[in-house]
């Protein structure tokens, strides 16, 4: 067996370009997913004691609707493969929009579809992480806050959010890494991310061992960077 390092060196520019795109999709997708997941996770438990619901006299009807919507989103996304979601968003969604609105010629760029897919997919999983983290907060702390007469928003911003965030960091880190690796699936909608770059180089020189080793190494570097960042944040916010 011969392992030709020169093959890897030659392919560095392509691999770097692919890595850059992978990183770009992952970071935007994850940040968007975090926002989406936080909203969905909070809606999923709206009106419950975990967010001071019964004490603030939430509208029970609105809370129930919000909960149902969040559950529908989470179950729909968790229950279908991300590959199918990507295909759906890239190929089927424009057709659906045209069919419903009558506007013709709608098309997502592959990159846009990829970012949307990561956002929506990661958002559903993060919603459950957020929900779990919020539910884990001691009810007594919520009551202590409310007994002072602070508003619901102050309660969420000053007490629930900081405590829940600390608890959510380890599972969120997990999801960040999964989402980053999931970007490799966008090879199927023709996004020039890292895996596709590897595939293309491989197709021209047939050096599977070198190329896939290099591709794996690039992913490892990126996931390590994510893991280290989270570790740093976790250390700075001492877990209580």
């Amino acid at each position: 067996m011969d392992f030709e390092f020169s093959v890897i060196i030659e392919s560095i520019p392509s691999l770097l370009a692919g890595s850059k795109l992978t990183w770009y999709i992952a970071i935007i997708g994850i940040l968007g997913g975090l926002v989406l997941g936080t909203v969905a996770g909070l809606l999923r438990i709206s009106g419950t004691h975990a967010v001071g619901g019964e004490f603030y006299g939430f509208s029970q009807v609105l809370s129930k609707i919000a909960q149902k919507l969040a559950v529908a989103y989470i179950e729909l996304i968790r229950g279908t493969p991300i590959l199918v979601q990507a295909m759906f968003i890239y190929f089927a969604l424009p057709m659906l929009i045209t069919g419903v609105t009558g506007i013709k010629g709608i098309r997502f760029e592959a990159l846009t579809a990829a970012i949307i897919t990561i956002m929506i997919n990661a958002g559903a999983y993060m919603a459950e992480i957020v929900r779990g983290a919020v539910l884990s907060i001691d009810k007594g702390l919520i009551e202590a806050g409310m007994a002072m007469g602070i508003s619901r928003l102050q309660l969420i911003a000053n007490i629930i959010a900081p405590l829940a965030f600390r608890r959510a960091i380890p599972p969120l880190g997990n999801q960040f890494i999964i989402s980053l690796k999931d970007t490799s699936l966008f090879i199927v909608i023709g996004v020039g991310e890292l895996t596709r770059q590897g595939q293309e180089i491989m197709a021209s020189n047939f050096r599977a061992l070198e190329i896939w080793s290099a591709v794996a190494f690039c992913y490892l570097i990126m996931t390590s960077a994510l893991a280290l960042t989270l570790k740093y944040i976790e250390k700075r916010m001492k877990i209580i």
Partner: protein
Amino acid sequence: MNSIIEFKNVDKSYGDLQVLYDIDLTIEKNEVVVLIGPSGSGKSTLLRCINGLEMITGGELIVDKIKLPEQKQHIREIRKEVGMVFQQFNLFPHMSALDNVAFGPRKTRGLSKTESYEIAHDLLKKVGLGDRSDHFPAELSGGQQQRVAIARALAIKPKVMLFDEPTSALDPELIEEVVNVMIAVAKEGMTMVVVTHEMNFATKAGTRLLFMDEGRIAEDGDPVKLIKTPESDRLKSFLRHVVEE
């Protein structure tokens, strides 16, 4: 009229389970009301109704002129006038002692950072923890945590203070320091409603003792008299158990 809390035929149930029956109770300003009774008698529930942590299911409850349940959208106005101390302290674990105490004045009274810190410093000094202001709750003993919690509740300058078994989660040797702070608060004329088994507090600082049994107020009178010379068998046997502890 000097009453600040008024229960009128108040009922409270959780679904089919009724925990308070037809409570009629008027608490005047500067009263220090001590609530005792066996577990499950409804004393904590009665206390938690006052600041709306539980909503009454029958009758009317007037706290600082706000009527419940009629005006329950104004529940925050009640809470700003009613401080509460919990059995499990419930200090915010991500804030220092100082920040815990300064939080209320800043958020509910809209005071500046400097003003609220000044209040917090003074109150921590008052509860004997002036040198612990930078400590986090996890770095304090139970008794110290509870004293911070009392300072936190006082910080919003409430008209009434509620105490829900404030010493029940404490080691015996830490109870006294908390009781002493509570007595000091009472001596300053604060209106207090205290659920406790500390007869020491009841006789030293209480102006009125309520004995609750099965969701009703069974006895209502002078603390010293009721504790030293109880008349009903029910209260006698309850006090025997408490003293034996």
